[in-house]
């Protein structure tokens, strides 16, 4: 059993968390964006994580045992928040609609900060796992000394 599979799994987690961080920073940066290229205010983006098996099982038996095997994580989809935007009464704004309401993105800054802390915590945990794998592999070389 090698340590490289374990490092691959941790690396996949690092990539996924980095994607999430990018989305969070994009959400935070666009908290007041009333226009986007697709029209309408900015919509909150979120990543959907899926646990995918590391090995591709070619046999039925392998598919059965795959349920419990080690699974890496991947970002399969980026969700756009479908909640209605926050309406604010600003008649003088160039993006105001007929009633004088401007549609602002429905982004809760506190929620985004909490997500950011979780993402960073998970990122650090996976870094620790990678370092542990590396240290164990290097220690095994001591057998030859």
């Amino acid at each position: 059993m090698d340590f490289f599979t374990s490092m691959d799994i941790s690396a996949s987690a690092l990539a996924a968390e980095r994607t999430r961080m990018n989305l969070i920073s994009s959400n935070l940066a666009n908290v007041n964006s009333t226009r986007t290229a697709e029209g309408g205010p900015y919509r909150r983006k979120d990543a959907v994580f899926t646990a995918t098996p590391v090995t591709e099982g070619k046999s039925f038996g392998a598919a059965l045992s795959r349920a419990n095997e080690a699974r890496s994580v991947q970002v399969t989809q980026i969700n756009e928040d479908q909640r209605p935007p926050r309406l604010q009464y600003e008649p003088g704004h160039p993006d105001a609609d007929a009633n004088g309401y401007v549609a602002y993105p429905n982004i809760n800054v506190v929620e985004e900060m909490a997500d950011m802390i979780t993402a960073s915590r998970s990122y650090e945990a996976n870094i620790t796992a990678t370092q542990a794998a590396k240290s164990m592999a290097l220690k095994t070389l001591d057998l030859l000394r």
Partner: protein
Amino acid sequence: MPVQGIFGNTVELLGKTLDLRAKRHTMISANLANVETPGYTASDISFEGQLKSALKGGPNSGGVTHPRHIQLKGGAASLEKVQGDLVDLSSRSMGPDGNGVEMESEMGRLAENQIMYNASVQILAKKFEGLKQAIRGTL
């Protein structure tokens, strides 16, 4: 020359332990990778019980005498056959998205596994060093 005889049971046991602990590390890093995935339950590989029964008595734990007999499960007959079972770790706190991984306990198990792995490697190296010294006849 009976070379195999100089490596006793302990060297085999330590080698097997290294193997199983490496597998456990893969499971732990998979749990840590999926700490945010909805609907994921933490899994682990459990091998201590099988190791114990393999060490206690090979012949007592359901050995087969004919190739077509089915091996009894639950205790490994010999040390090589210890594979370890994949079990689900039931967590005490299931998150609202169905995720069942406790990061704190996973980090604790990661550290413990790493320490035990390093200790096993060190003891194994010491054993080989002792054998080499006995063969050389001097320090």
